[in-house]
């Protein structure tokens, strides 16, 4: 059984050899004094999901986004409060009426094939790819009327109407800049470059073995001098939860993103000597976990019944016993991440079985001889064990107030079909992001004109409220932040009163990583940041 001992030693030897060659090469250029971060090393990510493509300009899928964000560049980056910072764009101006956004690009940015990145690449990416083909294209770029490129280093976005969240859409996870010379004139969705991407970001694509892994190498001509620090990123797909935990425990992977280590194991794993857990870096998603009700059918069409269910669920219990304390109890339909717009001052439904019973009585649901008021089915999102347990908890709680619940389970396509195509449900658990700005993440769930049959993660409830429609439009176009906040507070109060969805938790996904890895979570986009600052601390 020394075979594996040899294997491991051998791997270390190879890494040492690679590192040796690289440090020999870097002797030529002495490191700058201000660079505290150390060069070198490999980052091995152990992820749950395989990318569907490596061009995340076509999809917001998790796997594609986690890899593409390292390969492509973007106009802007953001600090923890979503305030823009320069990236490919070194300066920018917004006209006072909010209709013209002018970006001045750096002149030293090249794609990995050596061609320069210019304004025409930005224009092509937005008008030919992101706006028409990306699932969030309409939300991000719907207001864009046209783009001017007066010279190769200036891009001017002209908007049809002011769009308040517009300055927040230029992060690499939403808006990668694609090489026009590779995509122009081709069938963009089926371009071979989608599997062998050419970007301008800190890491260069090396190989993708489907079902197994993706390897990225350091981009030596990255426009931020001295970055990135890592030599290589290996993104590995480990579908089984228990195996993923074992892989992190045995040191075969260095970083496990997006709750790849289940909350059930989190407390044990984070106490391992070389492990760290964080819930930061998911602020850009601002996830809310909720129950969404089908308002088309009795008895959920009666708001008193929805409120009764709200009173019957102890959110704290759910947080502590099902999510093992990781996350936050939700007070309303907006995540508290959006500090400028969030308010807890909305109608609350504290845990009270008495109140629940009273409301059900008022709604005319009388108990039968067996104590049952009504028999009903529930569905749950098939995205993990927590949701099965949540469904069990809800069934037990509602039994106490006379609602006899049967839980139905289905796989993901079946669940999409049932909730958004057939509308054949009473309620289902779900989680949805408010994203970088509530005007980007929220309207699809509440604005009546956006309820489209057959499209998952939109208004399944049949919630229609003309006032809400108007307020969301106002929020999107209001440029004054104080006035915008007032509109959002109004929206939150109405949604908490009407209760088309019952918010339960603000989810906080976890990232696990090695203690000697630094600058892992560089901003609110977390694993969707470019990783150009991450480095290994030498012992």
């Amino acid at each position: 059984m020394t075979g594996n001992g040899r294997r491991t030693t051998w791997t270390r030897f190879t890494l040492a050899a690679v590192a040796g060659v690289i440090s020999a090469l870097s002797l030529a250029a002495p490191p700058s004094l201000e660079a505290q971060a150390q060069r070198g090393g490999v980052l091995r990510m152990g992820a749950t999901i395989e990318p569907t493509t490596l061009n995340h300009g076509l999809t917001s899928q998790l796997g594609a986004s986690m890899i593409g964000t390292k390969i492509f560049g973007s106009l802007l980056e953001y600090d923890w409060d979503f305030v823009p910072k320069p990236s490919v764009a070194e300066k920018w101006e917004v006209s006072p009426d909010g209709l013209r956004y002018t970006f001045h690009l750096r002149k030293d940015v090249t794609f990995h094939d050596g061609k320069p990145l210019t304004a025409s690449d930005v224009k092509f990416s937005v008008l030919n790819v992101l706006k028409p083909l990306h699932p969030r294209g309409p939300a991000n770029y719907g207001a864009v009327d046209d783009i001017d490129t007066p010279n190769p280093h200036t891009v001017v976005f002209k908007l049809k109407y002011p769009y308040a969240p517009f300055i927040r859409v230029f992060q690499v996870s939403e808006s990668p800049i694609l090489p026009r010379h590779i995509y122009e004139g081709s069938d963009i969705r089926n371009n071979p470059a989608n599997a062998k991407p050419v970007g301008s970001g800190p890491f260069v694509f090396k190989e993708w073995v489907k079902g197994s892994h993706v390897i990225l190498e350091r981009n030596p001509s990255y426009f931020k001098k001295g970055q990135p620090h890592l030599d290589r990123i290996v993104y590995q797909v480990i579908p089984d939860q228990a195996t993923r935990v074992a892989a992190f425990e045995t040191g075969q992977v260095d970083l496990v993103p997006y709750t790849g280590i289940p909350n059930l194991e989190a407390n044990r794993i984070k106490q391992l000597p070389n492990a760290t857990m964080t819930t930061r870096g998911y602020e850009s998603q601002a996830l809310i976990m909720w129950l969404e009700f089908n308002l088309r059918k009795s008895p959920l069409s009666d708001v008193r019944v929805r409120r009764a269910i709200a009173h019957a669920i102890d959110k704290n219990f759910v947080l502590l016993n099902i999510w093992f304390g990781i996350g936050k109890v939700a007070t309303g339909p907006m995540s508290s991440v959006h500090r400028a717009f969030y308010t807890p001052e909305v109608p609350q439904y504290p845990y009270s079985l008495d109140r629940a019973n009273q409301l059900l009585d008022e709604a005319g649901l009388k108990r039968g001889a067996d104590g049952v008021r009504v028999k009903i089915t529930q569905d749950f999102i098939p995205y993990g064990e927590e949701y099965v347990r949540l469904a069990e908890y809800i069934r037990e709680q509602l039994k106490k107030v006379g609602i006899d619940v049967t839980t139905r389970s289905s796989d993901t396509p079946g669940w999409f079909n049932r909730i958004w195509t057939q509308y054949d449900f009473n309620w289902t658990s779900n989680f949805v992001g408010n994203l970088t700005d509530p005007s980007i993440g929220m309207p699809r769930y509440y604005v009546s004109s956006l309820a489209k049959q057959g499209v998952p993660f939109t208004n399944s409830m049949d919630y229609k409220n003309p006032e809400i429609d108007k307020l969301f439009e106002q929020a999107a176009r209001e440029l004054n932040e104080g006035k915008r906040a007032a509109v959002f507070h109004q929206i939150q109060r109405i949604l908490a009163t009407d209760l088309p969805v019952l918010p339960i938790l603000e989810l906080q996904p976890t990232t696990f990583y090695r203690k000697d890895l630094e600058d892992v979570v560089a901003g609110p986009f977390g694993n969707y940041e470019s990783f150009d600052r991450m480095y290994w601390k030498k012992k």
Partner: protein
Amino acid sequence: MQSLGLYVSRRLLQAVPLLAGAIVLNFTLIHLAPGDPARTLAGEAGSATPEYVQQLRRDFGLDRSFGEQLARYASKVVRGDLGYSFRHREGVVGLIAERLPRTLLLMGVGFAWAVAGGVALGVLAARKRGTWAGAAISVASLLAYATPVFWFGLMLVLLFSVKLQWLPTYGMTTIGGDAAGFGWALDVAAHTVLPAATLGLFYLALYTRLTRASMIETISQDYVVVARAKGLSERRVILHHALRNALLGVVTMAGMQMAQMVGGSVLVETVFAWPGMGRLLFEAVAQRDYPVLLGGLLVSSVAVVVMNLLTDVAYGFLDPRVRAGERAA
């Protein structure tokens, strides 16, 4: 030998309508499942619009009628084209060609250890009948027979990877290790041990029990008694006279089960993150990626036909009476 050639070609001809039936049946069953690939992909993307879903449906040809879709698919299969994966945006033939050898490696090693180990343990158990060793083998094989595959796999990982750190936890190679030649082979071998052991365990237990039972029966037969009476060594009696007959039952089972192993490989490939065909097919179900699923099922059907044929041929070698029967027929 000529009769063998004729026999094989006749059997292959008979397989054609069988495979055609399998294609139509699979196609129909898959389309009966709720949900469709466009909406599934759109859902995975998180925030899609109706235009996005429509575009995908058109792209995938899902806006056509069921009959039209089936006809188009069948005409492509006849020309050796298994279609285009919705999810991977790549030809199905290429996807399967890339994954199949990996699954065959896993199955081959798992199967070899199941048959070799099972037969050896079975013979031993039959010979040691009534002793503690024989009883131990019987009990152990019964336990292994009843153990869920994934649980056994996880226990192996916990013991050999997490506790002892002898073997890697998952994958087929050390990713990012640029080994070549012998080093690479060694690396793959180290990665193969746990998943192959897991995959083969159930069958090992089965063949142990099967071999034991048929050995016990065979040993008591007259011709074995005669062989012993002739003064042949015990070793020769067991291996040449008894085992050869006892193996017939094992070969029958093994031939049928080789195809079932594809099912087992789904679990094993998931637990060990093995980038093989079992996982490809399993994920295709979860994604409603019809072309990949249909292509994989077709390849499995072909494998079943071929394995059954090989089993029949193997009979002939083990038992001359079967060959004689063929000639007479």
